[in-house]
C-alpha cells in the first residue's frame, strides 16, 4: 500500500537517508526502531511528503506521489500522522481539532464534520472531553485527540513518530491501548517507537535503522531474539535490557 524505493535525503551536506526501501501492506503494522539521529523521523516524513525525498520514489497503491503532478496535500489526506509532542492546535477545543480537517480539507458541512469528529473522539475514549482545550488535557489525552484528528480524515494509513516518548507510564498505556485497538481493526500503521512490548504484540515487521539505512528487517521475534548485525544487537540489548 505504501512503499519507499531507494529514498535518499540530504540536509545540506548531511546525508540523512541513504537509499531506503520499505513496503507496508494494507492492514499491516510496520515498526521502525533505531538509535537517535538514524533518520527514522525523516523517513516517516518522507512517506507523507512533509519532507520531499531528493532521490527515490514514494508510492501509494503503486502510484508515485513525489511527483509535481500530485498535490502533497492530497497525499497527506491519504496518510495521517501522529507526532511525539501531539501538536494539537492550541486555540481549538478537542472537538474543533478533529473538525478542522474535515471542514477545511474535506470541505464537509459543519454538522457532518461534528458528527464524525465526535465519533472519532468516542473511538479514542474522549467524547466527554470534546469541549476541553489542549492545555486542559493530560499528555495521554492530547495524544488520543491527535490520533482522532488523524483518523477523522479516513486515511489509508497512519504514521506514528514516537507517539509515547513524551508521556508518563499511565498515559503510555492509554495511548498504546488505542493503537493496539487500531491495529486490531486492521488499520495500516507505520510506527517509530521504542516500546518493544508494543512491537512484539502488534508488529508484522520490524525495521532496524542506523545511519540512514535499514540494516535489518524481520518479524519482531526474529529481530529482537536473533539480531544479526552488531549494531542491532547492541541496540536491542540496550533497549530491552
Amino acid at each position, binding site marked *: 500500500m505504501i512503499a519507499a524505493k531507494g529514498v535518499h535525503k540530504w540536509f545540506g551536506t548531511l546525508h540523512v537517508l541513504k537509499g531506503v526501501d520499505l513496503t507496508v501492506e494494507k492492514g499491516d503494522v510496520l515498526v521502525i526502531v533505531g538509535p537517535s539521529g538514524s533518520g527514522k523521523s525523516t523517513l516517516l516524513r518522507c512517506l*507523507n511528503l*512533509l519532507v520531499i525525498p531528493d532521490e527515490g520514489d514514494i508510492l501509494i497503491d503503486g502510484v508515485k506521489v513525489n511527483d509535481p503532478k500530485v498535490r502533497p*496535500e*492530497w*497525499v*497527506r*489526506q491519504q496518510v*495521517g*500522522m501522529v*507526532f511525539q*509532542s501531539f*501538536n*494539537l*492546535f*492550541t*486555540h481549538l477545543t478537542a472537538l474543533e481539532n478533529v473538525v*478542522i*480537517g474535515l471542514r*477545511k*480539507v474535506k470541505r464537509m458541512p459543519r454538522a457532518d464534520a461534528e458528527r464524525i469528529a465526535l465519533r472519532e473522539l468516542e473511538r479514542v475514549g474522549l467524547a466527554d472531553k470534546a469541549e476541553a*482545550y*489542549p*492545555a*486542559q488535557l493530560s499528555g495521554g489525552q492530547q495524544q488520543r485527540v*491527535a490520533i482522532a*484528528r*488523524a483518523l477523522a*480524515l479516513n486515511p489509508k494509513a497512519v504514521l506514528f513518530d514516537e507517539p509515547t516518548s513524551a508521556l508518563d507510564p499511565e498515559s503510555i498505556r492509554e495511548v498504546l491501548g488505542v493503537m493496539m485497538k487500531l491495529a486490531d481493526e486492521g488499520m495500516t500503521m507505520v510506527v517509530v517507537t521504542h516500546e518493544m512490548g508494543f512491537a512484539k504484540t502488534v508488529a508484522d515487521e520490524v525495521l532496524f535503522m542506523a545511519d540512514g539505512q535499514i540494516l535489518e528487517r524481520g518479524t519482531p521475534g526474529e529481530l529482537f531474539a536473533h539480531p544479526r548485525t552488531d549494531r542491532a544487537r547492541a541496540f536491542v540489548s540496550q533497549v530491552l535490557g
Partner: protein
Amino acid sequence: MGIAAGAAVAAILVVLDLGLYGLFDVDYALRILPALSRGLTATLGLVVIVIPLGFLLGFAFGWGRTSHNGVLRWFSTSYVEFFRSMPPIVLIVFTYLITLALLAGNERFDATELAPAVSIVALAAHSGAYQAEIVRAGILSVPESQREAAEAIGMTREQIMYNVTLPQMFRVSLPALGNEFASVIKDTSLLATVSILELTFIGVNLVSTLIQRGGNPDLVFVVWIEIAALYFVLTFAVSRILHTVERRYRVPGLEAPQL
C-alpha cells in the same frame, strides 16, 4: 460600564483640579465644549483612519519580516527600521512639506487640502512600523510544530495561515496592539502641526483666542483639563473594547503576555 468608569475618573481629575486651583469656570467649560467635541469627533475620525491603515501596513510588513523570501524580508525590515527611527512629528511635517513642494503650481489638486491628508498616512506608516514588530513577534510565537501538524492533515499554506497561524498570533498580540492603538490616539495630536482641526488644534486655538481677547489666563487650565479628559475618555474606551475582545477570545494555554 468601562466607559462610565473612565468618565468618572476623568470627572474626579477635573474636580481635583477645581479644588487645587479654585478656578474651574463651569460656564466657560460648557461654552467651549461644543468646539472641543467637534475636535474629539475629528480626532476619532483620524483614529478610525490611522489604526486600520497602520494595522494593514503592520500586518503586511510584519508578515514580510518572517517571509522566506529574502527580498521581501529585506524590504520589510528596511521599512520598519526607517519609520521606527523617526519621531512621528518629523515624519508628519516632512510629508506635509514634500507634498506641498510636489504640488506647487499644480492646478488640479489643492495642495493645502491634500498635504494634511497625506500627513495622516505618514502617521499610519509610523504606527505600521510598530505594529509590524508586534505582528512579527506574534507570528514567531506560533511554534513551527503547529503549522507542521496542519500540513500533516493536508491543509494548504493559505488554510494554515487563516486557521492556525492568524488565530494564535492574534490572541498573543492583542495586548501589545492595544498599547499601540492607545499610542496612536495620542499621536494624532501631532497632526495639529499641519493644521488638521482635531482636538489639540482646536484647544490651542481656543487658548490663543482667549489670550488675544484678554480673557482670564487661568481659563487656559480649563481648556487643557477638558482636552485631557476627552483624550482620556477616548483612549479608555478603546482600551475597554480591546479588553472585551481579549476576554471573548481567551483560550487556556494561549494567554497573552500581560503588559
